[in-house]
């Protein structure tokens, strides 16, 4: 057995909240071998960051390690002194954090920040350090390091900053790199490139890494070994392939089963892990997962299972792992029950035509003082049609205009141009000209459950008010209350939520309330903008199921917006892909997700991290990042990044709309047949490096 780079033994960490010390992490064991990328997964609050930070000996002021050892380099990090740890930091262990933009000092140039580490630890002079920094940047595929070094952080895009952070972390050839959700803030396409890069670099530098993430997909793509954390405890840890192929812990199994991709393309219901993770103070002496575990026995509820060696380097903390391993019991079976409710009808519930919206009209004062703002064309002549009882999915990277389209339809912003028809009736683009009937029929669920409910009003008030304002007939107080309670039950809550305030609801519960509110007046169309993106996977599954159930029960239609292709493809009958305010491809779900597709869709699909280690591949690398809509490329807006660019046509001419069967439309200079041919031939050669495009001047993404 090789000597691990770092090993954590029986680690327990507590936080002081008020006057109490609450345990956040309990007896965690973890070893990272040389050259290993060790994944640490778990839902929000499970203690991933706490463990990661403990491993670099950098805990919050109100944290203490109550037990355990962290052995690095034959010494327990708990006992090293202040100056000794400063020899280790940046030199032997380095960190790539999540919030990269804030992780660089905004008032110092990149060069200064990068050379600081190398000068400190490698004992080199300024010039040499500078040269090294250039090299390091080149290593992370930045084409013009000199340029980047002379910049301030805010002048760089998010992806670029993340590259800088990675270069910096690796610049002293550390033995351990801790990556705490290094890509969560990035777009999928950028994320794919960065992960790809990371994997190669870590191997190349012969380092070991701890990769912290909540996203099973990226873990599957990147890691060699995975530890699953739940409520501060290790549930299971195993080599990546084995974990994904045969989880031994019910929780792991549940997590995998929650993913929309787990249904293998079918529309089967997703598995639900009922309940929520225990909060810090509420962790019991029993199995922490017992409350939510379908297999829990009395033993499980009474005593905590030990973390057992399950052979092959696997560890499991479950009383019943042997039964599971033997296939005697199956925790979260992916049900194959496919409920095809009344299928989508042909008639349209909504049609939007030629929607355009430009932001950044000058304010009165700016007009006086002559400040110019170029304006952002957030929507360009977008048309969508939503059938009755169907779900329309909208995907695209950040800034592509998905939200703008949704809000224009809702009239929360007033589109500059466009025509809207709801159930064949023309509808005004201005909210104040919409009648009650329109308002009633067009409802929405917002992305962020935290701000979609007024913190000062109870659940009952919120939903009741909507009923009061929008229902068809006047109702008595008690009738309204009854209806609210009915709705609450319909979204899987109980009637006693009526008097709760949002502060006492979890994210998933808030989202359920928001959904109940949306459905309160029996709408014809509900627009859900990223309804699950701020939720944990297990909760996401619950919400997705709920949306599906409601559609079946209420006969409403949806527009579902998400940057997550999996979610959209799972929910939607029709899908549109947006890029820079335009729809580049749309059609029936299967048609869009199958080839031929627009090169952008192709890249998106390839970038999406599949939670299957067997399906590892190099994603199609797009050049640079999404251009700012302020300086939108001419011709085909995608030509600056397109790996299948034909030539100058793409730069000069607006691509035509290519129509395939079943109303499948693609905006591309390639005819469909040709596109299919080249895509069948395989992915494009890995695109030119990211740095070909100059750093994004706007830099505010």
């Amino acid at each position: 057995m090789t000597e691990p780079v770092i090993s954590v033994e029986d680690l327990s960490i507590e936080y002081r909240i008020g006057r109490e010390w609450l345990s956040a992490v309990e007896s965690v064991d973890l070893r990272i071998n040389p050259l290993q990328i060790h994944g640490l997964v778990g839902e929000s609050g499970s203690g991933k960051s706490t463990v990661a930070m403990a491993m670099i000996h950098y805990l919050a002021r109100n944290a203490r390690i109550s037990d355990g050892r962290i052995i690095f380099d034959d010494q327990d990090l708990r006992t090293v002194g202040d100056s000794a740890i400063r020899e280790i930091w940046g030199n032997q262990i380095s960190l790539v954090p999540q919030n990269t933009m804030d992780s660089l000092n905004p008032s110092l140039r990149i060069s200064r920040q990068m050379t600081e580490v190398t000068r400190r630890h490698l004992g080199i002079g300024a010039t040499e350090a500078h040269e090294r920094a250039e090299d390091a940047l080149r290593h992370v595929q930045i084409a013009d390091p000199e340029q980047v070094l002379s910049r301030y952080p805010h002048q760089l895009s998010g992806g670029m900053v993340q590259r800088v952070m990675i270069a910096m972390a690796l610049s002293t050839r550390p033995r351990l790199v801790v990556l705490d959700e290094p890509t969560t803030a990035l777009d999928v396409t950028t994320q794919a490139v960065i992960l790809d890069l990371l994997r190669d670099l870590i191997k190349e530098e012969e380092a070991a890494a701890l990769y912290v993430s909540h996203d099973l997909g990226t873990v599957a793509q990147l890691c060699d070994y995975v530890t699953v954390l739940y409520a501060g405890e290790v549930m299971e840890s195993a080599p990546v392939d084995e974990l994904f192929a045969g989880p031994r812990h019910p929780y792991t199994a549940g997590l995998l089963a929650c993913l929309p991709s787990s249904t293998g393309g079918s529309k089967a219901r997703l598995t639900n892990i009922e309940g929520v993770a225990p909060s810090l103070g509420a962790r019991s002496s029993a199995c922490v997962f017992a409350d939510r575990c379908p297999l829990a026995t009395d033993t499980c509820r009474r005593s905590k299972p030990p973390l057992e060696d399950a052979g092959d380097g696997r560890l499991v903390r479950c009383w019943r792992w042997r039964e599971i391993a033997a296939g005697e019991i199956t925790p979260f079976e992916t049900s194959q029950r496919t409920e095809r409710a009344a299928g989508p009808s042909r008639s349209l519930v909504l049609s939007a035509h030629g929607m355009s919206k430009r932001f950044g009209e000058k304010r009165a004062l700016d007009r006086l003082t002559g400040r110019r703002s170029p304006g952002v064309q957030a929507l360009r002549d977008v048309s969508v049609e939503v059938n009755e009882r169907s779900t329309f999915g909208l995907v695209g990277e950040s800034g592509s205009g998905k939200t703008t389209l949704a809000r224009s339809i809702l009239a929360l912003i007033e589109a500059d141009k466009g025509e809207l028809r709801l159930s064949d009736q023309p509808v005004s683009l201005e909210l104040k000209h919409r009648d009650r009937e329109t308002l009633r029929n067009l409802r929405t669920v917002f992305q962020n459950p935290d701000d979609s409910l007024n913190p000062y009003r109870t659940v009952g008030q919120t939903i009741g008010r909507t009923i009061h304002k929008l229902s068809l007939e006047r109702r008595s107080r008690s009738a309204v209350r009854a209806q609210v309670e009915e709705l609450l039950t319909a979204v899987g809550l109980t009637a006693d939520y009526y008097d709760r305030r949002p502060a006492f609801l979890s994210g998933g519960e808030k989202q359920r309330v928001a959904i109940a509110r949306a459905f309160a007046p029996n709408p014809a169309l509900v627009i859900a903008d990223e309804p699950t993106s701020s939720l944990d996977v297990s909760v996401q599954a619950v919400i997705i199921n709920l949306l599906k159930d409601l559609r079946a029960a209420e006969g409403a239609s949806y527009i579902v917006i998400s940057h997550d292709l999996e979610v959209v493809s799972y929910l939607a009958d029709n899908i549109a892909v947006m890029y820079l305010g335009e729809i580049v491809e749309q059609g029936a779900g299967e048609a869009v997700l199958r080839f031929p597709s627009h090169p952008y869709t192709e890249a998106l699909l390839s970038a999406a991290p599949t939670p299957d280690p067997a399906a590892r591949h190099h994603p199609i690398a797009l050049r640079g990042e999404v251009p700012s809509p302020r300086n939108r490329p001419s011709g085909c807006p995608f030509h600056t990044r397109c790996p299948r660019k034909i030539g100058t046509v793409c730069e000069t001419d607006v691509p035509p709309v290519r129509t395939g069967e079943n109303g499948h439309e693609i905006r591309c200079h390639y005819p469909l047949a040709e596109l299919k041919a080249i895509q069948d031939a395989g992915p494009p050669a890995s695109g030119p490096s990211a740095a070909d495009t100059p750093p994004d001047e706007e830099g505010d993404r």
Partner: protein
Amino acid sequence: MAEKDYAEPAAHAAPAPGSAPKRRSRLRTAITANPLAFIGAAGVVIFVLLTLFGPLLAPYSYDQIIRGTDIGGETRRALTSRPPSADFLFGTDQRGRDIFSRMLWGARETIGLPLVATIISVIIGSSLGLFIGYVGGLVDDIISRILDSLISIPAMVLALVMISTIVPLLSASGSRLIAVLGPSNISLTTVIVLIYVPIISRIARSATLSVRDRGYIEEAKLRGEGTMHILFRQILPSVLPALVVEASLRLSYAIILVTSLGFLGLGVQPPSPEWGRMVLDARTQISEAPWELWYPVLGIAVLIISFNLMSDGIRRLLRNEE
């Protein structure tokens, strides 16, 4: 944000369904967490009670000159500038008035007047701020610009300029109401309101801007709520904490302004026993009759410190709530 301000548990996971806030214990932890704030709050409560009931407790009227001739043959002067005694708890002043009684009466001008003025300012200012913040556009631009201009005149200067004109203006108006309420009371209130309305509306406006685009506001629009409902039922509650903090801060500034103007001889006019004015009147007595000076000085100091401790406490409390 990587590290959050963890003041209370359950940053991620919500408490188990059914757990209601335990009010009593929260209060107790709040007190133990910040005892100074509660000392301040207690002080403020006492001062407010004094404002309301002080005159009832006062042995004499605020302007009653206790004359030797009343007591028996002595001249008035014999009873001026008397040190504290059982008869005159805080002593008497140069005119022979009971300082203790004067301070009790004076709480009205010293605390009551700023309080009323602050309340008026908060009402006007927050309505204005809510409105322009929510409506936005040209209205907001223009009104904000005017308010900014007003803010760019330091409060003391604005107060002086206004005092110099409003007091004579009101005194000359001959209106009965003004005469009853006292021209200097009205003008001071006006001055404070004019100074504070811009500041408070700016706060209310920016607080409004920060919630204006929240989902629940948009939801309200989508169900066809009117502007008034949105402003006062949806936005106001979220803006309220910021306003409460600001109001408590403003109140203590208003007291400072009133007492300072009183000290400059430009505030509430005698014989009204406003404390700042009492300090002014007693200044030269510092060696002969120091109590004349120290009681009002002490009164003001304790008053302001109480308010500051309290408003600091409120600020922390509300920040923690978030």
